[in-house]
């Protein structure tokens, strides 16, 4: 077998219960990874350790770091990055890309509907309760027409590959999905460390995201504006995603503003420049709904812009994503996605949904309570991997505790079968070896007026702890460069 000759993979342990992205069931290297496998095999593990630290310092010097607060000086750490890339062949990518567009479009139509006529509820496809009890439904958005008819300009759809080799969607993120800058940085870091490997594969570039984003945002400019002025608004440089905000502004060539740089006069939005006020037409906001406008939402928000929502309602400014999109990336709405896609697009879902049990339904609640050990329990309105319980990891007393929580507020929880995320060989610092780690993939879809764009790549997130299924960076996840091939 090849992996015996390969120095770097000689100690790779394969769990045959798991779906390995690069080895098949017999342990043979998959064809698409063959060249990469050989190229990496030319290095010894010592070389690899060196390359790894080179890549790390690349991140460090680029300032792609997050802060760890200590008593004297805040230390900076980089997000863990793995040098062994993930490859997606053209055939598989087509499914992911089409599926992501389909979902984003369906969610957009769903949002329009529930903030206008609510036909989908009237037709009995989804229950009223789903919306009325959602914390993210914004009454203020009722009857508001967003410019260009787009709510979720940017969607981050998290997909995984299950044991059966099929892609499943785990989550749709349509509030302020983040991570796209890491896609590009991962590519940069990999190129700096191992540029040679790119000669052997025809990989799509990922650097065209910003230009497409700007193009699509400009397609939904407010009516009557000729050449729109677009800005990115950030909570500020101490926000953990500030690097991404500045990256997006820089690569789109637009201003990066904070709330205090903007003001509203006669329902138009202006920014304060060295030459006086300049009108702003499109705002890519990286601030949560509740902080956007202290006059309309949280009144103590110091990072928002007073009067912004009034300007938005008048149609004088585009907000991307629109306020109130959070109602549709609720995990309870997720479970209705097949029906939602069918209802608005009259299509079958291209990407699978994981079967979901609603604890709000008595018969499903009973099933969940009886089968907790084989289910993942998720709160419907949490992001970032918080509050998730994985049934087969819980002790008896923990199971009892989870049960109590569910019974107390069933609407708050959904349950899904434990999905087996595929694994990818990942270099582990402690053992200085490649080991199997679970991965997922976040894709980035942008909707504009009558056009859309999917970034050919995406963020492959890795759960760095052995056996861990939660890949979020807030939970100690790392990432990999992701190659979408033009051809094999």
């Amino acid at each position, binding site marked *: 077998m090849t992996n015996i000759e390969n120095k770097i993979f000689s100690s790779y342990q394969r769990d045959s219960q798991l779906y390995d992205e690069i080895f098949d069931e017999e342990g043979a290297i998959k064809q698409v990874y063959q060249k990469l496998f050989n190229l990496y095999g030319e290095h010894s593990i010592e070389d690899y350790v060196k390359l790894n630290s080179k890549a790390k310092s690349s991140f*460090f*010097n*680029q*300032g792609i770091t997050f802060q760890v607060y200590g008593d*004297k*000086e805040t230390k900076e750490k980089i997000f863990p990055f793995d040098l062994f890339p993930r490859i997606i062949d053209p055939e598989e990518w087509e499914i992911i890309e089409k599926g992501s567009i389909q979902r984003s479009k369906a969610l957009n139509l769903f949002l329009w509907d529930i903030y206008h006529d609510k036909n989908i509820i009237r037709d009995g496809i989804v229950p009223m309760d789903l919306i009325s009890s959602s914390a993210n439904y914004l009454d203020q958005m009722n009857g508001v027409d967003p410019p260009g008819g787009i709510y979720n300009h940017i969607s981050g759809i998290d997909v995984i590959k299950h044991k059966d080799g099929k892609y499943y969607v785990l989550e749709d993120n349509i509030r302020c999905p983040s991570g796209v800058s890491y896609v590009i940085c991962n590519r940069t870091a990999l190129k700096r460390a191992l540029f040679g490997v790119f000669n052997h594969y025809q990989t799509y570039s990922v650097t065209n995201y910003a230009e497409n984003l700007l193009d699509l945002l400009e397609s939904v400019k407010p009516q009557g504006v000729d050449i729109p002025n677009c800005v*990115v608004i950030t909570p500020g*440089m101490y926000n953990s995603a*500030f*690097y991404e905000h*500045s*990256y997006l*502004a*820089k690569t789109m060539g637009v*201003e*990066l*503003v*904070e709330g*205090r*740089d903007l003001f509203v006069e006669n329902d138009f939005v202006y*920014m*304060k*420049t*060295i030459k006086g006020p300049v009108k702003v037409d499109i705002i890519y906001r990286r601030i949560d709904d509740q902080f956007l406008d202290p006059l309309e939402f949280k009144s103590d928000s110091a990072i928002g812009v007073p009067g912004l929502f009034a300007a938005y309602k008048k149609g004088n400014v585009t907000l991307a994503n629109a306020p109130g999109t959070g109602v549709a990336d609720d995990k309870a709405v997720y479970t209705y996605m097949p029906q939602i896609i069918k209802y608005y697009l009259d299509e079958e879902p291209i990407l699978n949904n994981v079967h979901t049990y609603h604890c709000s339904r008595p018969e499903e609640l009973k099933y969940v309570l009886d089968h907790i050990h084989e289910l993942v329990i998720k709160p419907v309105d949490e992001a970032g991997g918080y509050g998730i319980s994985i049934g087969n990891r819980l002790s008896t007393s923990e199971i009892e505790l989870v049960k109590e929580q569910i019974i107390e507020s069933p609407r708050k929880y959904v349950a899904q079968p434990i999905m087996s995320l595929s694994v990818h060989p990942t270099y582990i610092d402690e053992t200085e070896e490649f080991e199997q780690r679970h991965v997922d993939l976040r894709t980035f879809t942008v909707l504009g007026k009558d056009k859309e764009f999917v970034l050919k790549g995406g963020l492959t997130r890795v759960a760095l702890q052995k056996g861990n299924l939660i890949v979020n960076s807030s939970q100690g996840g790392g990432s990999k460069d992701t190659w979408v091939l033009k051809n094999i």
Partner: protein
Amino acid sequence: MLARVANNLFWMGRYIERSEHIARYLNVNYFSSLDAPNQLSQSRQFVLRSMLFMVGDPELDDDKHLLEEHVLYKIGVDHDTPYSIINNVKLARENANSARDLISTELYEAINKFYHFILNYDPAIFVKNGLHDFTLHITEMTDILRGKIRGTLLHDPVYAIIMLGINMERATQVIRIINAKYNDALNSQGGYGDKFSKSFEWTTLLKCAESYDMMRRHYKKTPTSVSTLEFLILNPNCPRSIMNSLNQVYRHIKVLDTTTNYNKNATAFLIGKVRSEIQYKHIEEIECNIQAFIENILNNLSEISLKMEKEFFNY
């Protein structure tokens, strides 16, 4: 450009320039004192006091014995001293951070590396035997930064604002250094052969402003009080001179303010006025009352800064 961001870029330029002058001042004074021709200039106490004087924190108690390691630590790497080099670089980086979308990747990476170099420098080594290495690195890295500013940024208002910051700070620091060394020259006179006008401190002053070689080339004579001051204040061809700094400030403010109308309230007008005053001064006028001249320049510079803030950085 956003007014807030413009302000940050202006200060980024200032902090970069400031860290360089402090670092060089430490280096030059310390090492030239080691073999200085007279006893006082050789005295470690004298040098340490001069350093504190330059950063604006003079030791007022004449009898106090200063500890070398304390003073170096305080000025170099102390997080708790607002004027320390490490804090200047930290602030430069923080200001760069907030304008990251406007400056080049190359410039940002260089600033970031600079910051990490200082952050990771072992303070114990610095105060014991790292002074030369540390300060040399800083002056080299600020040169790299200036190169990146010049070579990787579009020469547009962003560039103009950074250059305004750099040159305003250069004028300020050079005049402060002149002040400090003038003070040293006064204090060290008295003994045989230590005449004020031929003091050893003038050479040190020129080296602090990295202008010694240039000066020698220009005058071909040992520096005296008059020639040194003339060179560092009035010579428009010396890149570190007050005159050149103000010329640069004027040049860059005209990028931001393109009006040609007479407007006595504009920053550009004030800069032009201050610049012309110096342009048509001769050194004898200045030399007879150098203290008053220094104070006047410092006042003018801070007036320009305030005006700039009102006109451009209002947010």
